[in-house]
Protein backbone atom coordinates (compact mmCIF):
# COMPACT_ATOMS: atom_id res chain seq x y z
CA UNK A 1 0.00 0.00 0.00
CA UNK A 2 1.33 3.42 -0.97
CA UNK A 3 0.31 6.27 1.32
CA UNK A 4 1.02 9.86 0.40
CA UNK A 5 0.53 12.48 3.10
CA UNK A 6 0.54 16.14 2.13
CA UNK A 7 1.62 18.13 5.16
CA UNK A 8 3.78 17.35 8.17
CA UNK A 9 1.68 19.19 10.71
CA UNK A 10 0.14 17.34 13.61
CA UNK A 11 -2.71 15.92 11.51
CA UNK A 12 -0.27 14.45 9.00
CA UNK A 13 2.14 12.95 11.48
CA UNK A 14 -0.60 11.63 13.74
CA UNK A 15 -2.11 9.90 10.72
CA UNK A 16 1.27 8.49 9.71
CA UNK A 17 1.95 7.19 13.23
CA UNK A 18 -1.47 5.55 13.24
CA UNK A 19 -1.01 4.01 9.80
CA UNK A 20 2.35 2.59 10.84
CA UNK A 21 0.86 0.91 13.89
CA UNK A 22 -1.69 -0.85 11.72
CA UNK A 23 0.30 -1.39 8.55
CA UNK A 24 3.99 -2.08 9.22
CA UNK A 25 4.75 -2.68 5.54
CA UNK A 26 3.06 0.16 3.66
CA UNK A 27 5.12 2.84 1.98
CA UNK A 28 4.52 6.26 3.54
CA UNK A 29 5.56 9.40 1.67
CA UNK A 30 5.38 12.92 3.12
CA UNK A 31 5.20 16.06 1.02
CA UNK A 32 5.60 19.14 3.17
CA UNK A 33 6.28 22.80 2.60
CA UNK A 34 8.00 23.21 5.92
CA UNK A 35 11.43 21.65 6.24
CA UNK A 36 11.61 22.16 10.01
CA UNK A 37 11.09 18.87 11.90
CA UNK A 38 7.45 18.22 12.90
CA UNK A 39 6.77 20.83 15.55
CA UNK A 40 4.16 22.29 17.82
CA UNK A 41 2.62 25.13 15.85
CA UNK A 42 0.72 26.72 18.75
CA UNK A 43 4.05 27.16 20.53
CA UNK A 44 5.57 29.51 17.98
CA UNK A 45 4.08 32.40 19.93
CA UNK A 46 6.10 31.22 22.93
CA UNK A 47 9.23 31.69 20.84
CA UNK A 48 8.19 35.26 20.14
CA UNK A 49 7.46 35.83 23.83
CA UNK A 50 10.82 34.33 24.75
CA UNK A 51 9.18 31.69 26.95
CA UNK A 52 10.30 28.74 24.80
CA UNK A 53 13.47 27.93 22.91
CA UNK A 54 13.59 26.69 19.35
CA UNK A 55 14.71 23.22 20.43
CA UNK A 56 11.53 22.83 22.50
CA UNK A 57 9.34 22.99 19.41
CA UNK A 58 9.81 19.59 17.75
CA UNK A 59 7.22 17.01 18.78
CA UNK A 60 8.96 14.04 17.19
CA UNK A 61 12.56 12.84 17.37
CA UNK A 62 15.19 14.04 14.87
CA UNK A 63 15.16 10.76 12.99
CA UNK A 64 11.35 10.71 12.86
CA UNK A 65 10.88 10.01 9.16
CA UNK A 66 13.59 7.38 9.07
CA UNK A 67 12.36 5.57 12.18
CA UNK A 68 8.88 5.57 10.70
CA UNK A 69 10.25 4.09 7.48
CA UNK A 70 8.83 7.02 5.58
CA UNK A 71 10.13 9.05 2.66
CA UNK A 72 9.88 12.79 3.16
CA UNK A 73 9.94 15.52 0.53
CA UNK A 74 10.52 18.57 2.69
CA UNK A 75 10.44 22.18 1.60
CA UNK A 76 8.39 20.90 -1.30
CA UNK A 77 4.90 21.88 -2.33
CA UNK A 78 2.17 19.75 -3.78
CA UNK A 79 1.34 21.48 -7.04
CA UNK A 80 -1.34 19.24 -8.48
CA UNK A 81 -3.43 16.21 -7.90
CA UNK A 82 -4.37 13.80 -10.71
CA UNK A 83 -7.31 11.71 -9.60
CA UNK A 84 -7.26 9.59 -12.78
CA UNK A 85 -3.70 8.39 -12.55
CA UNK A 86 -3.81 8.82 -8.75
CA UNK A 87 -0.68 10.88 -8.53
CA UNK A 88 0.44 13.96 -6.64
CA UNK A 89 2.74 16.28 -8.56
CA UNK A 90 5.22 18.19 -6.46
CA UNK A 91 7.33 21.31 -6.90
CA UNK A 92 10.48 19.18 -6.81
CA UNK A 93 9.39 17.88 -10.18
CA UNK A 94 8.25 14.37 -9.43
CA UNK A 95 4.91 12.59 -9.51
CA UNK A 96 4.08 10.50 -6.48
CA UNK A 97 1.67 7.63 -7.02
CA UNK A 98 -0.69 6.79 -4.17
CA UNK A 99 -3.25 4.22 -3.16
CA UNK A 100 -4.34 6.32 -0.19
CA UNK A 101 -3.86 10.07 -0.06
CA UNK A 102 -4.17 12.31 2.98
CA UNK A 103 -4.58 16.00 2.36
CA UNK A 104 -3.33 17.61 5.56
CA UNK A 105 -1.84 20.76 4.15
CA UNK A 106 -3.25 22.93 6.90
CA UNK A 107 -4.17 26.55 6.48
CA UNK A 108 -2.60 29.76 5.25
CA UNK A 109 -2.95 33.18 6.82
CA UNK A 110 -5.42 35.54 5.22
CA UNK A 111 -3.71 38.33 3.38
CA UNK A 112 -5.19 41.80 3.56
CA UNK A 113 -5.90 44.45 0.96
CA UNK A 114 -3.19 46.97 1.74
CA UNK A 115 -0.47 48.70 -0.20
CA UNK A 116 3.15 47.63 0.25
CA UNK A 117 2.24 44.51 2.18
CA UNK A 118 5.54 42.96 1.13
CA UNK A 119 7.75 45.42 3.00
CA UNK A 120 10.36 44.08 5.36
CA UNK A 121 9.18 43.52 8.94
CA UNK A 122 5.58 42.94 7.94
CA UNK A 123 4.85 39.45 9.20
CA UNK A 124 2.27 36.74 9.18
CA UNK A 125 2.48 34.49 12.20
CA UNK A 126 1.89 30.97 11.02
CA UNK A 127 5.16 29.06 10.78
CA UNK A 128 8.29 28.72 12.83
CA UNK A 129 10.07 30.54 9.99
CA UNK A 130 7.72 33.50 10.36
CA UNK A 131 8.46 33.74 14.04
CA UNK A 132 12.21 33.38 13.63
CA UNK A 133 12.01 36.35 11.27
CA UNK A 134 10.15 38.29 13.93
CA UNK A 135 12.67 37.38 16.63
CA UNK A 136 15.49 38.46 14.35
CA UNK A 137 13.82 41.84 13.84
CA UNK A 138 13.12 42.36 17.55
CA UNK A 139 16.24 44.36 18.48
CA UNK A 140 15.18 47.17 16.16
CA UNK A 141 11.50 47.13 17.05
CA UNK A 142 10.25 49.93 19.27
CA UNK A 143 6.60 49.92 18.32
CA UNK A 144 4.74 46.96 16.86
CA UNK A 145 1.42 47.13 15.09
CA UNK A 146 -0.89 44.12 15.26
CA UNK A 147 -3.70 43.88 12.76
CA UNK A 148 -6.62 41.80 13.92
CA UNK A 149 -8.02 40.97 17.33
CA UNK A 150 -8.15 37.20 16.92
CA UNK A 151 -6.09 34.62 18.75
CA UNK A 152 -3.04 35.11 16.55
CA UNK A 153 -3.23 38.86 17.02
CA UNK A 154 -3.41 38.46 20.77
CA UNK A 155 -0.58 35.99 20.92
CA UNK A 156 1.55 38.33 18.80
CA UNK A 157 0.67 41.29 21.02
CA UNK A 158 1.41 39.25 24.12
CA UNK A 159 4.75 38.20 22.66
CA UNK A 160 5.86 41.77 21.89
CA UNK A 161 4.65 43.05 25.26
CA UNK A 162 6.55 40.28 27.01
CA UNK A 163 9.64 41.60 25.27
CA UNK A 164 8.95 45.09 26.53
CA UNK A 165 7.87 46.41 23.14
CA UNK A 166 5.02 48.87 22.75
CA UNK A 167 2.08 47.41 20.82
CA UNK A 168 -0.91 48.92 19.10
CA UNK A 169 -3.67 46.58 18.00
CA UNK A 170 -6.23 47.48 15.37
CA UNK A 171 -9.54 45.62 15.49
CA UNK A 172 -12.22 46.02 12.90
CA UNK A 173 -15.04 44.64 15.07
CA UNK A 174 -16.22 45.99 18.38
CA UNK A 175 -14.18 43.95 20.82
CA UNK A 176 -11.24 41.54 20.84
CA UNK A 177 -11.59 37.82 20.11
CA UNK A 178 -15.16 38.35 18.93
CA UNK A 179 -15.03 35.06 17.04
CA UNK A 180 -13.96 33.09 20.08
CA UNK A 181 -15.53 34.61 23.14
CA UNK A 182 -18.30 36.79 24.43
CA UNK A 183 -18.03 40.50 25.03
CA UNK A 184 -17.47 40.34 28.79
CA UNK A 185 -14.50 38.00 28.51
CA UNK A 186 -13.19 39.94 25.51
CA UNK A 187 -13.20 43.11 27.51
CA UNK A 188 -11.50 41.43 30.47
CA UNK A 189 -8.71 40.28 28.17
CA UNK A 190 -8.39 43.69 26.61
CA UNK A 191 -8.20 45.32 30.04
CA UNK A 192 -5.50 42.87 31.12
CA UNK A 193 -3.41 43.59 28.02
CA UNK A 194 -3.96 47.32 28.33
CA UNK A 195 -2.76 47.10 31.93
CA UNK A 196 0.48 45.79 30.43
CA UNK A 197 0.79 48.53 27.86
CA UNK A 198 -1.27 47.41 24.89
CA UNK A 199 -3.14 50.08 22.99
CA UNK A 200 -6.31 48.83 21.31
CA UNK A 201 -8.14 50.76 18.61
CA UNK A 202 -11.40 49.42 17.27
CA UNK A 203 -13.29 50.10 14.07
CA UNK A 204 -10.14 50.95 12.18
CA UNK A 205 -7.94 49.21 9.59
CA UNK A 206 -4.59 49.61 7.89
CA UNK A 207 -4.82 50.52 4.23
CA UNK A 208 -1.14 50.66 3.34
CA UNK A 209 2.40 50.83 4.61
CA UNK A 210 5.36 53.14 4.10
CA UNK A 211 8.98 52.12 3.94
CA UNK A 212 11.85 53.73 5.77
CA UNK A 213 15.32 54.22 4.27
CA UNK A 214 16.31 50.65 5.08
CA UNK A 215 13.35 49.25 3.15
CA UNK A 216 11.59 48.10 6.29
CA UNK A 217 8.16 49.27 7.31
CA UNK A 218 8.21 52.69 8.98
CA UNK A 219 4.54 53.60 9.22
CA UNK A 220 1.05 52.34 8.48
CA UNK A 221 -1.65 54.35 6.77
CA UNK A 222 -4.99 53.91 8.45
CA UNK A 223 -8.55 53.91 7.18
CA UNK A 224 -9.32 57.18 8.97
CA UNK A 225 -6.69 58.98 6.91
CA UNK A 226 -4.11 59.20 9.67
CA UNK A 227 -0.85 57.34 9.78
CA UNK A 228 0.85 55.48 12.59
CA UNK A 229 4.57 55.01 13.03
CA UNK A 230 5.58 51.41 13.57
CA UNK A 231 8.63 49.30 12.84
CA UNK A 232 7.01 45.88 12.81
CA UNK A 233 3.57 44.71 11.68
CA UNK A 234 1.85 41.39 12.32
CA UNK A 235 -1.13 40.52 10.20
CA UNK A 236 -3.44 38.27 12.19
CA UNK A 237 -6.59 38.17 10.14
CA UNK A 238 -7.36 34.49 10.43
CA UNK A 239 -6.50 31.55 8.23
CA UNK A 240 -8.12 29.70 5.36
CA UNK A 241 -7.66 26.07 4.27
CA UNK A 242 -4.57 25.59 2.06
CA UNK A 243 -6.10 23.71 -0.82
CA UNK A 244 -5.16 25.67 -3.93
CA UNK A 245 -3.75 22.56 -5.64
CA UNK A 246 -6.85 20.45 -4.99
CA UNK A 247 -8.91 19.84 -8.16
CA UNK A 248 -12.56 20.82 -8.26
CA UNK A 249 -13.59 17.18 -8.50
CA UNK A 250 -13.02 17.06 -4.77
CA UNK A 251 -15.94 18.70 -3.00
CA UNK A 252 -15.20 21.71 -0.89
CA UNK A 253 -17.00 24.31 1.10
CA UNK A 254 -14.69 26.47 3.21
CA UNK A 255 -12.54 23.40 3.67
CA UNK A 256 -12.38 20.04 1.98
CA UNK A 257 -15.56 18.19 2.83
CA UNK A 258 -15.04 14.84 4.51
CA UNK A 259 -17.33 12.10 5.73
CA UNK A 260 -17.17 10.36 9.10
CA UNK A 261 -14.15 8.37 7.99
CA UNK A 262 -12.33 11.56 6.94
CA UNK A 263 -12.69 10.51 3.32
CA UNK A 264 -13.49 13.06 0.64
CA UNK A 265 -16.01 12.36 -2.10
CA UNK A 266 -13.18 10.64 -3.99
CA UNK A 267 -12.48 7.12 -2.76
CA UNK A 268 -9.05 6.73 -1.24
CA UNK A 269 -8.53 10.47 -0.82
CA UNK A 270 -8.78 11.70 2.76
CA UNK A 271 -8.40 15.06 4.44
CA UNK A 272 -7.65 15.99 8.05
CA UNK A 273 -6.68 18.97 10.15
CA UNK A 274 -7.13 22.66 9.36
CA UNK A 275 -7.83 21.93 5.69
CA UNK A 276 -10.73 19.57 6.38
CA UNK A 277 -14.35 20.37 7.03
CA UNK A 278 -16.38 17.89 9.02
CA UNK A 279 -19.22 18.63 11.44
CA UNK A 280 -19.18 20.72 14.59
CA UNK A 281 -21.10 18.86 17.28
CA UNK A 282 -22.36 21.95 19.09
CA UNK A 283 -23.33 23.82 15.94
CA UNK A 284 -24.67 20.68 14.30
CA UNK A 285 -23.48 21.71 10.89
CA UNK A 286 -20.42 21.49 8.63
CA UNK A 287 -17.68 23.56 10.15
CA UNK A 288 -13.91 23.98 9.94
CA UNK A 289 -12.37 23.82 13.39
CA UNK A 290 -8.78 24.74 12.64
CA UNK A 291 -7.36 23.90 16.05
CA UNK A 292 -4.66 21.57 17.30
CA UNK A 293 -6.69 18.99 19.27
CA UNK A 294 -9.13 18.55 16.38
CA UNK A 295 -6.21 18.01 13.98
CA UNK A 296 -4.92 15.28 16.31
CA UNK A 297 -8.34 13.61 16.42
CA UNK A 298 -8.85 13.82 12.69
CA UNK A 299 -5.35 12.56 11.96
CA UNK A 300 -5.98 9.53 14.12
CA UNK A 301 -9.31 8.73 12.52
CA UNK A 302 -7.96 9.26 9.01
CA UNK A 303 -4.96 7.05 9.74
CA UNK A 304 -7.14 4.22 10.95
CA UNK A 305 -9.39 4.33 7.91
CA UNK A 306 -6.54 4.71 5.43
CA UNK A 307 -4.85 1.65 6.86
CA UNK A 308 -8.07 -0.34 6.60
CA UNK A 309 -9.23 -0.36 10.23
CA UNK A 310 -12.55 1.49 10.01
CA UNK A 311 -13.23 4.21 12.56
CA UNK A 312 -15.85 6.95 12.67
CA UNK A 313 -15.34 10.55 13.65
CA UNK A 314 -18.31 11.84 15.63
CA UNK A 315 -17.56 15.49 14.95
CA UNK A 316 -15.35 18.22 16.29
CA UNK A 317 -15.84 20.95 18.83
CA UNK A 318 -14.31 24.40 18.73
CA UNK A 319 -12.37 25.17 21.88
CA UNK A 320 -9.50 27.23 23.06
CA UNK A 321 -7.55 28.09 26.13
CA UNK A 322 -5.22 31.06 26.45
CA UNK A 323 -3.27 32.51 29.29
CA UNK A 324 -2.59 36.22 29.00
CA UNK A 325 -0.46 37.54 31.84
CA UNK A 326 -2.58 36.88 34.94
CA UNK A 327 -5.70 35.94 33.04
CA UNK A 328 -6.73 32.43 32.00
CA UNK A 329 -9.51 32.08 29.47
CA UNK A 330 -11.09 28.86 28.26
CA UNK A 331 -13.95 28.65 25.78
CA UNK A 332 -15.75 25.97 23.84
CA UNK A 333 -18.64 25.73 21.43
CA UNK A 334 -21.04 28.51 20.51
CA UNK A 335 -20.00 31.55 22.47
CA UNK A 336 -19.52 34.39 20.04
CA UNK A 337 -22.30 37.00 20.24
CA UNK A 338 -23.44 36.28 16.70
CA UNK A 339 -23.78 32.57 17.34
CA UNK A 340 -25.17 32.72 20.82
CA UNK A 341 -28.15 34.81 19.81
CA UNK A 342 -31.32 33.00 20.81
CA UNK A 343 -29.52 30.59 23.13
CA UNK A 344 -30.34 30.40 26.81
CA UNK A 345 -27.49 31.74 28.85
CA UNK A 346 -26.41 31.73 32.46
CA UNK A 347 -23.50 33.74 33.72
CA UNK A 348 -21.76 34.64 36.89
CA UNK A 349 -19.09 37.16 37.77
CA UNK A 350 -17.20 36.73 41.02
CA UNK A 351 -15.49 39.97 41.84
CA UNK A 352 -13.52 38.60 44.78
CA UNK A 353 -12.10 35.63 42.89
CA UNK A 354 -11.89 37.63 39.68
CA UNK A 355 -13.67 34.89 37.78
CA UNK A 356 -16.31 35.01 35.12
CA UNK A 357 -18.32 32.09 33.79
CA UNK A 358 -20.91 31.88 31.10
CA UNK A 359 -22.85 28.82 30.00
CA UNK A 360 -24.91 28.60 26.83
CA UNK A 361 -27.73 26.14 26.29
CA UNK A 362 -29.88 25.08 23.37
CA UNK A 363 -33.03 23.32 24.54
CA UNK A 364 -31.39 22.56 27.84
CA UNK A 365 -28.28 21.08 26.29
CA UNK A 366 -24.96 22.74 27.01
CA UNK A 367 -23.55 24.02 23.69
CA UNK A 368 -20.86 26.39 24.84
CA UNK A 369 -19.09 28.05 27.75
CA UNK A 370 -16.62 30.73 28.68
CA UNK A 371 -14.44 30.51 31.77
CA UNK A 372 -12.22 33.33 32.89
CA UNK A 373 -9.81 32.19 35.63
CA UNK A 374 -10.32 29.02 37.68
CA UNK A 375 -10.34 27.01 34.48
CA UNK A 376 -9.38 23.64 35.99
CA UNK A 377 -12.88 22.19 35.65
CA UNK A 378 -13.20 23.37 32.05
CA UNK A 379 -12.47 19.88 30.75
CA UNK A 380 -15.57 18.57 32.55
CA UNK A 381 -17.74 21.17 30.80
CA UNK A 382 -15.92 20.68 27.51
CA UNK A 383 -16.77 17.01 27.57
CA UNK A 384 -20.40 17.71 28.44
CA UNK A 385 -20.63 20.01 25.41
CA UNK A 386 -18.86 17.43 23.28
CA UNK A 387 -21.32 14.77 24.44
CA UNK A 388 -24.36 16.95 23.86
CA UNK A 389 -25.22 16.33 27.50
CA UNK A 390 -27.62 18.19 29.69
CA UNK A 391 -26.32 19.81 32.83
CA UNK A 392 -29.33 18.28 34.61
CA UNK A 393 -30.12 21.45 36.46
CA UNK A 394 -26.57 21.90 37.70
CA UNK A 395 -26.29 25.37 36.25
CA UNK A 396 -25.80 27.09 39.59
CA UNK A 397 -23.17 24.57 40.63
CA UNK A 398 -21.32 24.89 37.33
CA UNK A 399 -21.16 28.64 37.75
CA UNK A 400 -19.78 28.27 41.26
CA UNK A 401 -16.25 27.79 42.50
CA UNK A 402 -16.82 24.28 43.90
CA UNK A 403 -18.02 22.63 40.70
CA UNK A 404 -16.63 19.14 40.20
CA UNK A 405 -17.29 16.00 38.21
CA UNK A 406 -18.73 14.27 41.28
CA UNK A 407 -21.69 16.63 41.14
CA UNK A 408 -22.34 15.78 37.51
CA UNK A 409 -22.31 12.09 38.30
CA UNK A 410 -24.42 12.59 41.43
CA UNK A 411 -27.09 14.45 39.50
CA UNK A 412 -27.07 11.72 36.91
CA UNK A 413 -28.01 9.31 39.67
CA UNK A 414 -30.66 11.58 41.14
CA UNK A 415 -32.24 12.25 37.79
CA UNK A 416 -32.40 8.55 37.13
CA UNK A 417 -30.36 8.95 34.00
CA UNK A 418 -28.25 6.00 34.91
CA UNK A 419 -28.00 5.69 38.65
CA UNK A 420 -30.77 6.06 41.22
CA UNK A 421 -30.16 8.04 44.37
CA UNK A 422 -28.98 6.10 47.38
CA UNK A 423 -31.46 5.66 50.19
CA UNK A 424 -31.37 4.05 53.58
CA UNK A 425 -33.31 0.82 53.64
CA UNK A 426 -32.91 0.02 50.01
CA UNK A 427 -29.98 -1.97 48.71
CA UNK A 428 -27.15 0.46 48.35
CA UNK A 429 -26.65 1.55 44.84
CA UNK A 430 -23.46 3.38 45.48
CA UNK A 431 -21.48 0.61 43.92
CA UNK A 432 -23.01 1.52 40.61
CA UNK A 433 -22.34 5.13 41.39
CA UNK A 434 -18.80 4.05 41.91
CA UNK A 435 -18.76 2.67 38.40
CA UNK A 436 -19.83 6.05 37.16
CA UNK A 437 -17.04 7.62 39.11
CA UNK A 438 -14.62 5.32 37.43
CA UNK A 439 -15.94 6.41 34.08
CA UNK A 440 -16.35 2.88 32.87
CA UNK A 441 -18.47 -0.17 33.43
CA UNK A 442 -15.95 -1.39 35.94
CA UNK A 443 -16.77 -0.77 39.57
CA UNK A 444 -13.28 0.44 40.20
CA UNK A 445 -11.09 3.30 39.28
CA UNK A 446 -8.38 1.54 37.41
CA UNK A 447 -5.38 2.90 35.73
CA UNK A 448 -6.30 1.47 32.39
CA UNK A 449 -9.92 2.21 31.69
Amino acid at each position, binding site marked *: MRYVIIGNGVAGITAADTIRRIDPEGHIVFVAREAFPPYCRPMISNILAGSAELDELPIRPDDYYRSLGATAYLGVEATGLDLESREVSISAGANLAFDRLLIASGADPHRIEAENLDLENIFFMRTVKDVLGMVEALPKVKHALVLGGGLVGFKAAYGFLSRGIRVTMLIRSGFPLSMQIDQTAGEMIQAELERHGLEVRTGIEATGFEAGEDGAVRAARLSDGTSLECDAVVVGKGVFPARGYVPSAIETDAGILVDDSMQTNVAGVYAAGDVAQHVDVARRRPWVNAIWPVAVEMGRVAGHNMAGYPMRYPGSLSRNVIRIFDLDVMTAGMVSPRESEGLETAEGYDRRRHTYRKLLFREGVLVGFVLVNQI*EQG*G*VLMNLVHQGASLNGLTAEALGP*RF*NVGQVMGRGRQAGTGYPAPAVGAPSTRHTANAAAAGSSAAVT*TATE
Partner: protein
Amino acid sequence: MKQVIVHPERCVGCMQCMTACATAHSTSKTLIGALLEEPRPAPRIHVGAGLEDEGFPNRCRHCDPAPCQLGCLPGAIYRAKGSNTVMVDYDLCINCASCAMACPYGVIRFAEDPKAPPGKTVAVKCDNCVERQAQGKVPACVETCFAGALTFEEPSEAMKRRTGEVAASISLDAAAHRVPLSASWDLQSEMKRRQKALDQR
Protein backbone atom coordinates in the same frame (compact mmCIF):
# COMPACT_ATOMS: atom_id res chain seq x y z
CA MET B 1 -0.61 -4.70 38.58
CA LYS B 2 -1.94 -3.15 41.77
CA GLN B 3 -3.74 0.12 41.36
CA VAL B 4 -5.40 2.76 43.47
CA ILE B 5 -9.09 2.07 43.56
CA VAL B 6 -11.57 4.71 44.64
CA HIS B 7 -14.68 3.86 46.64
CA PRO B 8 -16.46 7.21 46.82
CA GLU B 9 -19.27 5.69 48.89
CA ARG B 10 -16.85 5.35 51.77
CA CYS B 11 -15.37 8.84 51.59
CA VAL B 12 -16.10 10.96 54.64
CA GLY B 13 -14.55 14.06 53.12
CA CYS B 14 -11.71 14.42 55.65
CA MET B 15 -9.22 15.46 52.95
CA GLN B 16 -6.37 13.62 54.66
CA CYS B 17 -5.50 12.14 51.27
CA MET B 18 -4.84 15.62 49.92
CA THR B 19 -2.48 16.41 52.77
CA ALA B 20 -0.72 13.07 52.46
CA CYS B 21 -0.42 13.50 48.69
CA ALA B 22 1.09 16.95 48.97
CA THR B 23 3.51 15.70 51.62
CA ALA B 24 4.52 12.76 49.45
CA HIS B 25 5.32 15.20 46.67
CA SER B 26 7.35 17.50 48.87
CA THR B 27 11.11 17.52 49.19
CA SER B 28 11.20 16.78 52.92
CA LYS B 29 8.41 14.16 52.85
CA THR B 30 7.18 15.37 56.22
CA LEU B 31 4.08 17.43 56.83
CA ILE B 32 5.85 20.12 58.85
CA GLY B 33 8.70 20.26 56.37
CA ALA B 34 6.30 20.47 53.45
CA LEU B 35 4.52 23.43 55.00
CA LEU B 36 7.78 25.32 55.20
CA GLU B 37 8.88 24.52 51.67
CA GLU B 38 8.89 26.96 48.81
CA PRO B 39 7.18 26.16 46.52
CA ARG B 40 4.68 24.42 48.73
CA PRO B 41 3.84 21.05 47.16
CA ALA B 42 0.38 20.70 45.64
CA PRO B 43 -1.98 17.77 46.21
CA ARG B 44 -2.78 15.59 43.19
CA ILE B 45 -5.97 14.18 44.62
CA HIS B 46 -8.92 16.48 45.14
CA VAL B 47 -11.81 15.89 47.50
CA GLY B 48 -14.73 17.80 46.11
CA ALA B 49 -18.15 18.19 47.64
CA GLY B 50 -20.94 16.33 45.89
CA LEU B 51 -24.52 17.53 45.62
CA GLU B 52 -25.28 16.40 49.16
CA ASP B 53 -21.95 17.68 50.41
CA GLU B 54 -20.63 14.14 50.43
CA GLY B 55 -16.93 13.71 49.84
CA PHE B 56 -15.86 12.88 46.32
CA PRO B 57 -12.22 11.83 45.99
CA ASN B 58 -11.17 12.78 42.50
CA ARG B 59 -7.89 11.65 41.07
CA CYS B 60 -6.37 10.93 37.68
CA ARG B 61 -7.77 7.79 36.03
CA HIS B 62 -4.64 7.38 33.92
CA CYS B 63 -6.91 6.86 30.89
CA ASP B 64 -5.50 4.94 27.97
CA PRO B 65 -5.42 6.60 25.52
CA ALA B 66 -5.39 9.71 27.66
CA PRO B 67 -7.21 12.81 26.37
CA CYS B 68 -4.72 15.05 28.16
CA GLN B 69 -1.85 13.33 26.41
CA LEU B 70 -3.52 13.68 23.01
CA GLY B 71 -4.21 17.34 23.70
CA CYS B 72 -0.77 18.20 25.09
CA LEU B 73 0.87 20.76 22.82
CA PRO B 74 4.57 20.26 23.59
CA GLY B 75 4.29 16.50 24.05
CA ALA B 76 5.06 16.79 27.77
CA ILE B 77 2.47 14.23 28.84
CA TYR B 78 3.51 10.65 28.40
CA ARG B 79 2.72 7.18 29.65
CA ALA B 80 5.46 5.72 31.80
CA LYS B 81 6.57 2.42 30.34
CA GLY B 82 5.28 -0.59 32.21
CA SER B 83 3.41 1.28 34.93
CA ASN B 84 0.18 2.46 33.32
CA THR B 85 0.88 5.89 34.70
CA VAL B 86 0.32 9.10 32.78
CA MET B 87 3.15 11.46 33.66
CA VAL B 88 4.08 15.08 32.97
CA ASP B 89 7.60 16.04 31.91
CA TYR B 90 8.06 19.33 33.75
CA ASP B 91 10.89 20.43 31.49
CA LEU B 92 8.65 20.22 28.42
CA CYS B 93 5.41 21.48 29.99
CA ILE B 94 4.56 25.04 28.93
CA ASN B 95 1.64 25.57 31.32
CA CYS B 96 -0.80 26.10 28.44
CA ALA B 97 -3.74 24.31 30.12
CA SER B 98 -4.61 22.33 27.00
CA CYS B 99 -4.62 19.24 29.23
CA ALA B 100 -7.12 20.81 31.61
CA MET B 101 -9.31 21.57 28.62
CA ALA B 102 -9.19 17.91 27.62
CA CYS B 103 -9.52 16.19 31.01
CA PRO B 104 -13.12 14.99 31.52
CA TYR B 105 -12.54 14.64 35.26
CA GLY B 106 -10.95 17.98 36.01
CA VAL B 107 -7.99 16.55 37.93
CA ILE B 108 -5.15 18.64 36.53
CA ARG B 109 -3.88 21.68 38.42
CA PHE B 110 -1.17 24.23 37.70
CA ALA B 111 1.48 24.98 40.26
CA GLU B 112 5.15 25.29 40.91
CA ASP B 113 6.64 22.01 42.01
CA PRO B 114 9.81 20.97 43.83
CA LYS B 115 10.66 18.72 40.88
CA ALA B 116 10.02 21.38 38.23
CA PRO B 117 12.54 24.03 37.18
CA PRO B 118 12.52 26.79 39.83
CA GLY B 119 9.85 29.42 39.31
CA LYS B 120 8.13 27.46 36.55
CA THR B 121 4.43 26.75 36.83
CA VAL B 122 3.60 23.33 35.42
CA ALA B 123 0.69 20.92 35.12
CA VAL B 124 0.60 18.70 38.19
CA LYS B 125 -1.39 15.53 38.44
CA CYS B 126 -1.36 12.13 40.12
CA ASP B 127 1.73 10.08 39.34
CA ASN B 128 0.56 6.98 41.21
CA CYS B 129 3.33 7.75 43.72
CA VAL B 130 5.92 6.12 41.49
CA GLU B 131 8.62 7.24 43.90
CA ARG B 132 6.98 5.56 46.89
CA GLN B 133 6.11 2.48 44.89
CA ALA B 134 9.76 2.10 43.91
CA GLN B 135 10.51 1.99 47.65
CA GLY B 136 7.90 -0.70 48.15
CA LYS B 137 5.36 1.64 49.72
CA VAL B 138 1.72 2.06 48.75
CA PRO B 139 0.58 5.42 47.35
CA ALA B 140 0.31 8.06 50.06
CA CYS B 141 -3.40 8.72 49.62
CA VAL B 142 -4.17 5.06 50.21
CA GLU B 143 -1.92 4.79 53.23
CA THR B 144 -3.66 7.65 54.96
CA CYS B 145 -7.27 6.85 54.07
CA PHE B 146 -8.86 5.52 57.27
CA ALA B 147 -12.32 5.40 55.74
CA GLY B 148 -11.38 2.77 53.20
CA ALA B 149 -12.36 5.01 50.30
CA LEU B 150 -8.98 4.47 48.67
CA THR B 151 -7.45 1.03 48.36
CA PHE B 152 -4.42 -0.29 46.55
CA GLU B 153 -5.08 -3.68 45.05
CA GLU B 154 -5.39 -5.77 41.94
CA PRO B 155 -8.33 -4.44 39.92
CA SER B 156 -9.49 -7.97 39.20
CA GLU B 157 -9.63 -8.73 42.94
CA ALA B 158 -11.56 -5.57 43.66
CA MET B 159 -13.98 -6.27 40.84
CA LYS B 160 -14.58 -9.78 42.10
CA ARG B 161 -15.27 -8.58 45.60
CA ARG B 162 -17.58 -5.90 44.32
CA THR B 163 -19.46 -8.32 42.13
CA GLY B 164 -20.02 -10.48 45.18
CA GLU B 165 -21.27 -7.52 47.18
CA VAL B 166 -23.67 -6.54 44.47
CA ALA B 167 -24.93 -10.07 44.13
CA ALA B 168 -25.46 -10.33 47.87
CA SER B 169 -27.31 -7.04 48.00
CA ILE B 170 -29.90 -8.13 45.45
CA SER B 171 -30.24 -11.76 46.47
CA LEU B 172 -33.65 -13.06 47.54
CA ASP B 173 -32.98 -13.12 51.24
CA ALA B 174 -31.13 -9.83 51.20
CA ALA B 175 -34.20 -8.02 52.54
CA ALA B 176 -34.13 -10.16 55.67
CA HIS B 177 -30.59 -9.36 56.78
CA ARG B 178 -29.38 -6.59 54.63
CA VAL B 179 -26.37 -4.56 55.53
CA PRO B 180 -25.81 -1.64 53.18
CA LEU B 181 -22.48 -1.63 51.41
CA SER B 182 -21.70 1.69 52.94
CA ALA B 183 -23.81 2.09 56.03
CA SER B 184 -22.00 5.15 57.27
CA TRP B 185 -22.27 7.05 54.03
CA ASP B 186 -25.89 6.09 53.49
CA LEU B 187 -26.82 7.20 56.97
CA GLN B 188 -24.92 10.44 56.83
CA SER B 189 -26.17 11.46 53.42
CA GLU B 190 -29.74 10.59 54.36
CA MET B 191 -29.44 12.75 57.46
CA LYS B 192 -28.02 15.59 55.38
CA ARG B 193 -30.79 15.26 52.86
CA ARG B 194 -33.49 15.30 55.54
CA GLN B 195 -31.89 18.22 57.31
CA LYS B 196 -31.89 20.19 54.06
CA ALA B 197 -35.49 19.24 53.39
CA LEU B 198 -36.56 20.22 56.91
CA ASP B 199 -34.64 23.49 56.73
CA GLN B 200 -36.46 24.38 53.55
CA ARG B 201 -39.91 23.64 54.96
